[in-house]
């Protein structure tokens, strides 16, 4: 166990029980965005490691200690989306499985096959029609090393196997819109690079959506908040009660009609 983890475990007992109760996932393969579906509950999300499932509200996905996740941003302008100047320090989680690093991805392998319809999203980044589930970035909140709210950029990208330009799926550096989306297929599984412009505590809000097979009905999850520690563990992550309030606030904020019209339509096969 890393010394920092021990410290965190000790510190956990020094703060009120209601505020400190969270698990930590670090240094392992973790499907941060594990998408679930049932007819009764619709689309939802959990955090899935190879051995445990967590509620997103109860787990910090962490990589550290300080210094271990840093890399120098290359100077080419294709990396501007990272929100870090050329030659500056980027904090990152890798797309490839590296020993002692957090290997975070998305999966929809627990969804019964044949639940979702095949379609081609109106998105040039998506290569072909498939039973796509969309992962939409709704909001990013950042807290610095003293726990104060601040400004930082989050990004999600993949690089191809043969050295071409990166495919940028999400980047908060230029604001957040429907373009800040990633896609995974029903039954599928995918890994990306995760970039952060500063060390600290990030809250990422994701929403999952797709079209049901047969009816082509558009379905989407609630806004689900994930808690990420970038070389830093906060004293507490919000309790589910507080999250529920955040969720309610998000629903109120998003209650303008454009958020309810699908951005893309399914293509009949």
């Amino acid at each position: 166990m890393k010394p920092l983890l021990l410290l965190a475990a000790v510190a956990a007992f020094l703060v009120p029980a209601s505020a400190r109760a969270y698990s930590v996932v670090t240094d392992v393969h973790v499907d941060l965005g594990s998408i679930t579906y049932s007819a009764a509950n619709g689309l939802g999300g959990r955090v899935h490691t190879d051995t445990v499932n967590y509620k997103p509200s109860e787990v910090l996905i962490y990589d550290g200690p300080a210094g271990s996740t840093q890399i120098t941003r290359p100077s080419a302008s294709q990396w501007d989306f990272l929100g870090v100047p050329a030659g500056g320090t980027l904090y990152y989680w890798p797309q490839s499985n590296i020993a002692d690093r957090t290997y975070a991805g998305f999966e929809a392998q627990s969804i019964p096959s044949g639940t979702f319809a095949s379609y081609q999203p109106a998105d040039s980044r998506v290569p072909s029609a498939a039973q796509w589930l969309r992962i939409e970035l709704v909001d990013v909140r950042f807290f610095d090393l003293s726990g104060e709210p601040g400004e930082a950029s989050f990004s999600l990208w993949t690089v191809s196997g043969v050295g071409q330009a990166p495919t940028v799926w999400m980047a908060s550096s230029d604001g957040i819109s429907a373009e800040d989306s990633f896609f995974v297929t029903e039954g599928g599984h995918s890994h990306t690079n995760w970039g952060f412009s500063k060390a600290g505590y990030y809250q990422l809000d994701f929403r999952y959506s797709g079209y049901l097979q047969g009816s082509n009905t558009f379905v989407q999850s609630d806004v689900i908040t994930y808690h990420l520690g970038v070389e830093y563990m906060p004293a507490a992550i919000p309790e589910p009660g507080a999250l529920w309030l955040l969720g309610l606030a998000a629903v109120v904020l998003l209650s303008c009609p454009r958020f309810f019209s699908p951005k893309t339509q399914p293509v009949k096969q």
Partner: protein
Amino acid sequence: MKRTTALLIALIAAATAHHGGAAPYENVYTSGHADLGVAYEEEEGGMHFHYHFGSDAVINGSPLGGDGGEYDIGDATTYVAPDTKLFININPSVNNMLGLGASGGDLWYLPQTQNPALPFLGLATEDLDAGDWNGGITFTLNSVTGPGQFSLWSNGTFGEFNFEFSTQNPGGTVGGDNAVTLPIGTHSHYNWGFTAAGIYEVSITVSGNHKDFGLVSDTQTVTFGVETTPVPEPATYGAAVGLALLGFLIARRRKLAAA
């Protein structure tokens, strides 16, 4: 009487062939998620290196569905389609590791990132229990038979090439040894590269240090079909002939009965 005897022989030939082991060409994997995974079965021969297909894996044109499935490695071929071919010229060092000429060349490759139209093939140790092992599982490339060069690499965060296997320059791989070690209980995705069309037989050994049984291993040959799939072996042609003879005789009997 003679016809009945012939019919029996044809039936026996077909039935016998059916009970033989499946061959790579019988199950062609064309898209979806799969891992080459390691299991340990104490009662059934120890280390078992196998295909673990996801529910979205397409075999012989249809998704497996359900929970996917496990196949012996010798029972399937991974297909690398013509449209995976790209002209690649990165730099002389990377070109060399890929097995291309100094100024680049054509490369067929299955990507580390998911493209639903292609096989999305990884390596996995998810079936194993960390409590049973000292250290991780090592995947070692033994040999490759095929029309060109083979390499396996992962992507760095800014697009760098981290080679794990290369038939062209094993000494230049990450460990300098054509081997990659994964911790227990995980999986990892890679790019799989080939420099010519045709059938590749890629021999890989998985090995690990089991707490009760010591050093254990399994070696399997993974078949890749680049723009092609393997053809049936001669023994299996016999079965095909038997089936054809059976069909002919049935048709002939029907014709005779009708007359």
